[in-house]
């Protein structure tokens, strides 16, 4: 318990950030026309690929002969990159279609 309290105390700024971002996330999405639900979901999905940052940090800090970490980290980079690049590209393709009609 004390452990966790100490952790919370250390991470206070992060917790502020967490709470405000939650509210921000709710507010941003509150009014979206139905037609944009799919592209929005797809775009949000691409943003969730931000987890790739973690994989990069992991690899950069790994010892050069720690092949287990390097391999799993690289796997993480590959997976995250597919999510990011694929996600944004797919969303852009959807958007391209909306644009044409005007």
């Amino acid at each position, binding site marked *: 318990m004390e452990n966790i309290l100490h952790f919370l105390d250390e991470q206070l700024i992060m917790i502020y950030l967490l709470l405000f971002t939650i509210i921000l996330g709710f507010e941003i999405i509150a009014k979206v026309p139905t037609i944009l639900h799919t592209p929005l979901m797809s775009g949000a999905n691409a943003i*969730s690929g931000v*987890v790739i940052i973690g994989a990069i940090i992991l690899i950069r*800090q790994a010892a050069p002969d720690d092949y287990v970490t390097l391999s799993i980290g690289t796997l993480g980079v*590959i997976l995250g990159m597919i999510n990011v690049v694929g996600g944004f590209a797919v969303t852009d393709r959807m958007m391209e279609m*909306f644009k044409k009609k005007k």
Partner: protein
Amino acid sequence: MLSTIINLSYLVGALAFVIGLRRLSSPDTARRGNILAAIGMSIAIIATLFYPFSGAPNNYAWIIGGAIIGGIIGFVAAKRVQMTAMPQMVSIFNGLGGACAVALAIVELLHYYNGTADLSGGQFAVVLLTLFIGAVAFTGSILAYLKLDGKVWDSQVTLPGHTYVNIFLLLVTVGMCVYLFMQGPALGFGWAIALTVIALIYGFSFVAPIGGADMPVVISLLNSFTGLSAAAAGLIYGNQIMLVGGILVGASGTILTVLMCQAMNRSLFNVIIGGFGGGAKSSKGQDGDQVAKEVTVSDAGIQLFYSKSVIVVPGYGLAVAQAQKVCKEMDDLLEANGVDVKYAIHPVAGRMPGHMNVLLAEADVPYPKLIDLDDANAALPDTDIVIIVGANDVVNPAAIDDPGSPIYGMPVLEVWKAKNTIVLKRSMSPGYAGIQNPLFFNDNNRMLFGDAKDSLQKLVKAIKEN
């Protein structure tokens, strides 16, 4: 100095996410919003590459190699995928994001149990959380993909009393998390692997009983899970942009999920339990020897040619048959003859909200021709002919007048109020939700059996002959 620039870059990246998401929610700015978010992501990734870790070996070759491989796979997959398979693609991408979070958590746990890294109690809890949420998002998304792609059917993966199985699995998974947390590093890495396996099984099992028709809701929910796991991973590394990006997705994904449930007039709980599909029986109909009347292509063509107003109700059948372009061709032909053609879009038509809009936009159907549920229901009584192309549950009158029906209460397009309806359908089999549709037996309804694209092509030909 450098670290200040990097931190400011993170700030810019986070702002780009927020403004990008904001713009994504409005049709005029959506494309730029997406590009902005992508720029934000690029800034964040580049900044992370240059972040000055003291004495870090960097291992750039591994990172660049992985990024190139992943980037190419993602880009090619996104460019090649058919517009109809878009929901599946999003689901897979989402699952891979979850898998990435799992990979991170496993490495942290490996070091923790090896004694090569020390985690504070709070950090350890966050790692376990990352592992759990990421794993559920991973296998859940993969199953959602398989279901959407028709590779797996609900009945193949659902056990009797599946709700209890899920509750049991959830308790075991959470229980194991707590046990690992309490025991600390003494337990050994094997336990972490066991937890991973169980969490992966739970993710699969979580999605299993949910009807295929509800997959859009599930993908949205799993998307917010991936966001949360990214945010949790952000806490492990004390990285602000992971936290902001992840939480933004987590929060907005949750809202989107709720919006989708509202469009179906159901609660999220109801969706997760798996309200549709298995065993639900209608209180009436089905038992009589009702016969649906068929119409010939040429009759239907003449009817359309001499009508004043036509409303097309597209559904997943249109997407599967890739019939959007032929549909537009018929539309043009009718418009040239002075027929008013509109498209009624049900909020959950297809496999994802907005799925039909995307498809029709691909076929250059002008934006103002698409009308939403309320406008359509106002216009339907004055409509001569409604053509239902591969839609079923969204035009089922049982939702209004049969309290025993599993979809009772869901807002539907009241097509039966129009003067005539023509249903383009492969066969009489029930729709994705597995519910019989009394509309087919109405007096003013005619069936035109066959593949949607094929039938529409024949209709186009028939109209041209007039």
